[in-house]
């Protein structure tokens, strides 16, 4: 009795490639239409919107949230959630700035200090992800509660390290590290390249590897995945680590922008990342989702705030409302497509 629906669900969600591949394409349609529409509107409202410079500004800004959203997409597909990505990014940023300053003060050349800082950011992200994963899988605590806890813990530690002020990167390091955010290659800013690479890699892992299929299977029905001999705990821990690494990468890109971390760094990034994933057509209850949709969702959200800044037709007090309306509208059409 139990095994029959089991096999059917598993086959539906995971190994049958035809079904699995048709879904993302359908899901990508809604947000893409929304993005095109919003962009057309932007071009009509302000002539500068469609300029290459503005497009690059928006994509570069999206890079942090976008990279985090790719990781978040895996977690949500697996049926989990992480609320603490913003405060994790803030704590990692503060920690690596302190580390790089200390390394430079100890006489390391700037480049070595920066490379050490970057490696440390990614390692810290992985460790924080590992802690989340272990508490959730082995400790069997709800992901919502675990990450609600770390949301406060990470930010409190950053506030403690900074005395409530800002942790600032030393002058020579800041200018040496600057190109990671401000530099570009072939006319495209570095953070955009990183975003593209992370998204492509994420899509590849989700759709073309056994691990990616396990993630979808667990989110679709954890019990069934367990019966199908999937090492659920291991896959879950890996998923939270993957998101942690994404947060680490995002922080590596973020630090050179302002060269500082303060208790307001990364505020509400978790909601932006989750919104990008959901607007992109991934179900909050897990099971299936798409990286393409997530990328489009992330870009859509930052394009909206860009257009609001470029025009003054709407009261500034209503900025957040506009984004809210778009999120609900896109989610509504998403629902129609299922």
């Amino acid at each position: 009795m139990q095994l029959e629906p089991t096999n059917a669900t598993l086959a539906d969600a995971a190994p049958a490639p035809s079904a699995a591949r048709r879904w993302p394409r359908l899901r990508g349609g809604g947000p893409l239409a929304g993005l095109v529409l919003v962009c057309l509107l932007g071009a009509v409202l302000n002539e500068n919107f469609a300029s290459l410079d503005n497009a690059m500004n928006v994509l570069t800004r999206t890079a942090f949230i976008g990279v985090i959203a790719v990781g978040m997409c895996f977690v949500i597909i697996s049926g989990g959630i992480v609320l603490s990505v913003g405060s994790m990014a803030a704590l990692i940023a503060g920690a690596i700035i302190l580390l790089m300053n200390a390394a430079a003060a100890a006489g390391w050349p700037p480049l070595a200090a920066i490379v050490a800082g970057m490696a440390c950011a990614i390692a810290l992200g992985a460790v924080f992800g590992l802690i989340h994963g272990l508490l959730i899988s082995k400790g069997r605590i709800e992901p919502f509660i675990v990450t609600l806890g770390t949301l406060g813990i990470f930010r409190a530690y950053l506030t403690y390290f900074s005395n409530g002020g800002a942790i600032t990167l030393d002058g020579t390091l800041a200018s040496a590290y600057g190109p990671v955010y401000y530099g570009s290659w072939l006319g495209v800013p570095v953070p955009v390249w990183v975003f593209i690479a992370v998204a492509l890699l994420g899509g590849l892992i989700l759709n073309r590897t056994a691990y990616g299929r396990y993630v979808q299977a667990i989110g679709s029905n954890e019990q069934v995945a367990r019966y199908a001999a999937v090492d659920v705990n291991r896959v879950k821990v890996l998923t939270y680590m993957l998101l942690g690494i994404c947060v680490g990468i995002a922080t590596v890109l973020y630090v050179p922008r302002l060269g500082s971390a303060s208790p307001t760094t990364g505020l509400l990034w978790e909601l932006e990342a989750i919104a990008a994933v959901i607007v992109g057509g991934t179900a909050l209850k897990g099971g299936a989702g798409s990286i393409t949709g997530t990328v489009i969702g992330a870009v859509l959200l930052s394009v909206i705030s860009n257009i609001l800044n470029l025009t003054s037709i709407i009261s500034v007090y209503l900025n957040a409302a506009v984004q809210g309306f778009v999120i609900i509208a896109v989610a509504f059409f998403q629902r129609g497509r299922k």
Partner: protein
Amino acid sequence: MKPITQLLAASAAALALLTAAPAALAQNKPNIGVSIPAATHGWTGGVVYWANRTKGELEKQYPGLTVTIKTAGSAAEQANQIQDLQTANKIDTLVILPFESAPLTQPVAQIKAKGVYVTVVDRGLTDPSAQDAYVAGDNPGFGKVSGEYLAKALGGKGNVVVLRGIPTVIDNQRVDAFMAVMKSHPDIKVLDAKHGNWNRDDAFKVMQDYLTRFKQIDAVWASDDDMAVGVQKAIEQAKRSDVKLVLGGAGSKDYIKKVMDGDKAVTADVTYSPSMIADAMKLTAAARVKGEKLPPSTIIPSVLVTKDNAKQYYFPDSPF
């Protein structure tokens, strides 16, 4: 006869002692509770720093005086905290920087009804009878001083963009006063005013979009030193040379330092210092030790900081 006189004398002495005792207590050893928001951003970080620093100074200056400092993460937490200060720490004086005015009015009124002397700092309560004294920064003055300096620096002519804080009464008062000054300079055009939420990252994005949208910007009123950081990064990235002035505000050590060192774009700053908590604590302590009252309202003016006077506003040890 004799016993009666003795009794009379004794009771007179007792009476004198009774009436003198509270006065003596108030004169010598006030027990002061200080309740402030936790250090969640630069400015409140400064408040915590100044409160702790002043506690040390006051306890040294007035032996026997005690100061208890509590920080709160929310209005509800702060309400519980001042109750604890009154019941557990037995404070007779409260200096409070309320998280929000409305939700704390009732809790503070209750503490005052129990005989605690209350000084409210920066954010006035909705019912002024719940406080004995009010010490605050000057928000309209902040906008006015900023506007006047900016107009003078521009020679009364040019394009200005404004970054606003978090939508609050404080922000409205500042911006309204600034705009009033701009009105008297018809050749200055305020292109737009959008919220950067007193946040570096938000200010960076808003400024990037201003730079995309407006081809000629002569000055930026960032209205806050944290926002000025984001604004300057955005200008630097766009390699724009038309922006000649970036005016922050609040008097953070980094921006006072820039003014002191003669930075090209940052030629001035306007104070709205978190050290107002220190002023409030010192004024309250001095008055309570002498058993006097504070004036009902003390306004600490917002001052223009230029290269000439920057030194006296520079506190390198402060986190802000």
